[in-house]
């Protein structure tokens, strides 16, 4: 095990009740852990909804739930997974890691940081409180007009609106906080081009959130005004236009998918170099590709609206095809980083490699949809469901679990158990493929998304049954993870400060870090300051020599 290189001297704190401390904390590390815990609870909730959906679809004419309940289920599942699970998971990881990685004492605005977090559980409660007021929203997470107008949906949609206003405000505030932290609180020597890749991805994500979410907020306000004050934004009878909602929604909704994937890519770019014992290949190309995704992300929203007939197909098709290029660059970065590296497959690395395989499929089956003729055929079929689950579950969730296994020793001073971690990984990977891959085939056969039932004559029985089995494998994969966390937290905190022989600054302090993180920082001369400190600056070229050194210090 590597020795502590820069442990802070004093960690004196004053005592108060743990509950009071957690409810009022402004420490970015504690808020980060609160984010992760909250997201995981909503992950269990939204995952349970998915199990009901899948069980209902296991066999034709099963009718476990009626159609209205089914609509509510997929609406709540989608909304919760995107706004209360994936986004806050990534925000939580950013909260924990970004100040540590840039060598800051905390976020730029710690109290606003706490506010951003506490709006989330409140928003979640509001979202689900519809069950007590005549039913939750049932218009899908996209809440298209006119379905979401007052004529066709009840007060659940109003609660959906208010919840999303809260959650959107929370994201905007936290993105401003991240940007101010990254712009202003970097340690001396930490230039922009020495920042860890994860920090870069959080920065670009924050820019996307800051610029895209307010447009969504404006759209959601319009929906609220239409529903409650007799407005006519989306009502063609009074001069409005329902497509306006789609434009506003997807102007946010498409950058949103990059918001959900970029930090996961950042995590992978932290994990793969450390477990390959090499610096990341093409650091600058990676940063450039991230910026390019962020920029192009604002010019592709209308590919969700090809079939409306109101968008200029060649432009949006071209831009959508272009945005695959920077993602391709990143794939070559990751592969070249692993190429001839000294690979070890601890659980974080397994999830990173799992990310590469599933996200590649998810990316490619999305790129195919950039072609309008294909999109016309596959629009609103299960192909789209397959695509988004491959990128969100196979991509983002894999990245989130890679990060949790990677940073858990930093957060709690104990490494998660490797054996249980591997069981978790195998079940999750197999479950994801068994559940989501057959959706491609169903899409090609024309099965529409968001249907509660289908005809036995359609020939979709077998694939649906297989998917349902897969969804229960995914559910089972969560159990070893929860048991792992439970057992590890009860066990000894003996991981040490730098269990993975890491490269970046978070491993230079104790595990867990003290309040305000650092007493001293190593000199920062590259994007791997801790590696430079341990093995000498310039060692990056002498990979062979490095491997020999690592041999001696790695446990």
């Amino acid at each position, binding site marked *: 095990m590597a020795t502590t*290189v*820069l442990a802070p001297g004093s960690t004196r704190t004053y005592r108060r009740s743990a509950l009071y401390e957690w409810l009022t904390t402004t420490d970015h590390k504690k808020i980060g852990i609160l984010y992760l815990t909250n997201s995981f609870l909503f992950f269990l909730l939204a995952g349970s909804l998915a199990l009901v959906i899948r069980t209902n679809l296991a066999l034709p004419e099963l009718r476990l739930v009626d159609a209205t309940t089914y609509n509510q289920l997929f609406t709540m599942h989608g909304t919760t997974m995107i706004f209360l699970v994936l986004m806050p998971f990534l925000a939580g990881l950013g909260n924990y890691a970004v100040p540590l990685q840039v*060598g*800051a*004492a*905390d976020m*730029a*605005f710690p109290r*606003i940081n706490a506010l951003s977090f506490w709006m989330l559980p409140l928003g979640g409660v509001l979202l689900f409180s519809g069950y007590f007021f005549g039913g939750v929203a049932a218009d899908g997470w996209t809440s298209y007009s006119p379905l979401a107008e007052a004529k066709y949906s009840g007060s659940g949609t109003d609660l959906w609106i208010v919840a999303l206003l809260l959650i959107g405000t929370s994201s*905007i505030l936290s*993105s*401003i*906080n991240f*940007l*101010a932290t990254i*712009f*202003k*609180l970097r*340690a*001396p*020597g930490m230039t922009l081009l020495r920042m860890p890749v994860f920090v870069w991805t959080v920065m670009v994500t924050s820019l996307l959130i*800051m*610029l*895209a*979410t*307010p*447009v*969504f*907020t*404006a*759209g959601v*306000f*319009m929906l609220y*005004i*239409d529903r409650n*004050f*007799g*407005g*006519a*934004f989306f*009502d063609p009878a*009074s*001069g*409005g*236009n329902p497509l*306006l909602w789609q*434009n*506003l929604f997807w*102007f946010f909704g498409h950058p949103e998918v990059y918001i959900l994937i970029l930090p996961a890519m950042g995590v992978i770019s932290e994990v793969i170099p450390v477990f390959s014992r090499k610096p990341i290949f093409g650091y600058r190309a990676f940063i450039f590709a991230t910026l390019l995704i962020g920029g192009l992300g604002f010019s592709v929203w209308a590919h969700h609206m090809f079939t409306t007939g109101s968008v200029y197909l060649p432009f949006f098709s071209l831009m959508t095809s272009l945005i695959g290029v920077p993602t391709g660059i990143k794939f070559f970065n990751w592969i070249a980083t692993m190429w001839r590296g000294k690979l070890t497959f601890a659980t974080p690395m397994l999830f990173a490699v799992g990310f590469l395989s599933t996200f590649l499929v998810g990316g490619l089956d999305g790129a195919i949809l950039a072609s309008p003729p294909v999109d016309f055929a596959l629009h609103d079929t299960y192909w789209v469901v397959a695509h988004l689950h491959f990128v969100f579950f196979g991509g983002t969730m894999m990245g989130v679990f890679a990060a949790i296994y990677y940073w858990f020793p930093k957060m709690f001073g104990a490494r998660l158990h490797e054996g249980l971690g591997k069981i978790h990984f195998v079940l999750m990977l197999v479950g994801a493929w068994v559940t989501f891959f057959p959706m491609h085939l169903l899409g090609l056969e024309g099965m529409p998304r968001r249907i509660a039932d289908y005809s036995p004559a359609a020939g979709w029985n077998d694939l649906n049954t297989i998917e349902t089995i897969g969804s229960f494998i995914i559910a089972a994969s969560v159990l070893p993870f929860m048991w792992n966390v439970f057992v590890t937290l009860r066990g000894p905190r003996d991981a040490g400060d730098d269990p993975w022989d890491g490269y970046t600054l978070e491993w230079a302090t104790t595990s867990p870090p003290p309040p*305000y*993180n*650092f*007493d*001293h*920082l*190593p*000199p*920062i001369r590259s994007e791997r300051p801790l590696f430079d*400190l341990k093995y000498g600056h310039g060692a990056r070229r002498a990979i062979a020599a490095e491997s020999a050194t690592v041999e001696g210090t790695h446990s």
Partner: protein
Amino acid sequence: MTGRTEALPAPLHGARQGIDTALVGMLLFIASEIMFFAGLFGAYFSIRAEHTVWPPAGFKLDLALAAVLTAILVTSSFTMQYAVSRIRKGDRTGMIRAMTVTIILGVIFLAGQLYDYSSLGFGVSSGVYGTLFYTMTGFHGAHVLGGVIGMSIVLLRGVNGQFSARHHTAVEAVSIYWHFVDVVWLGLFSTLFLLR
């Protein structure tokens, strides 16, 4: 292990160089606000483009009142900037006076807008033009109110003896916000009242 860099305590980080962290936060917040209003303006222009007669028959605005209110709001930007220049020179009393004038001008604007609302012959629910008009001016009015509240807090802090030539970030921040609100109004005034 060769050298060490002393970690700087958080306040010194901000003072290291360049613009104050809180001001960076305000500028980023305004960037997000610009996108919020961009959403509203985008809705306006996309619906405007689908209509040949605009504003639709039956919608009449009070251009004279709006012009007066515009003049008031633009003047308030100047008094606000005067308040900033006073506190930069360490003149807290001058800042307090100019800030008070700015708050009064902001309140007059809000009162004028409410009067305008009460005298117009259409409402939110009388067609898409009414919805757009009240939503856009209403959200702007809410931002004016927010600015008035922010300025009042700064004013109270000034009256209590805070702020000096070196330490007056809140004054700078609230002034940037107020100018932003003013610019949004100029956009609204030209869009709704002049361009048609």
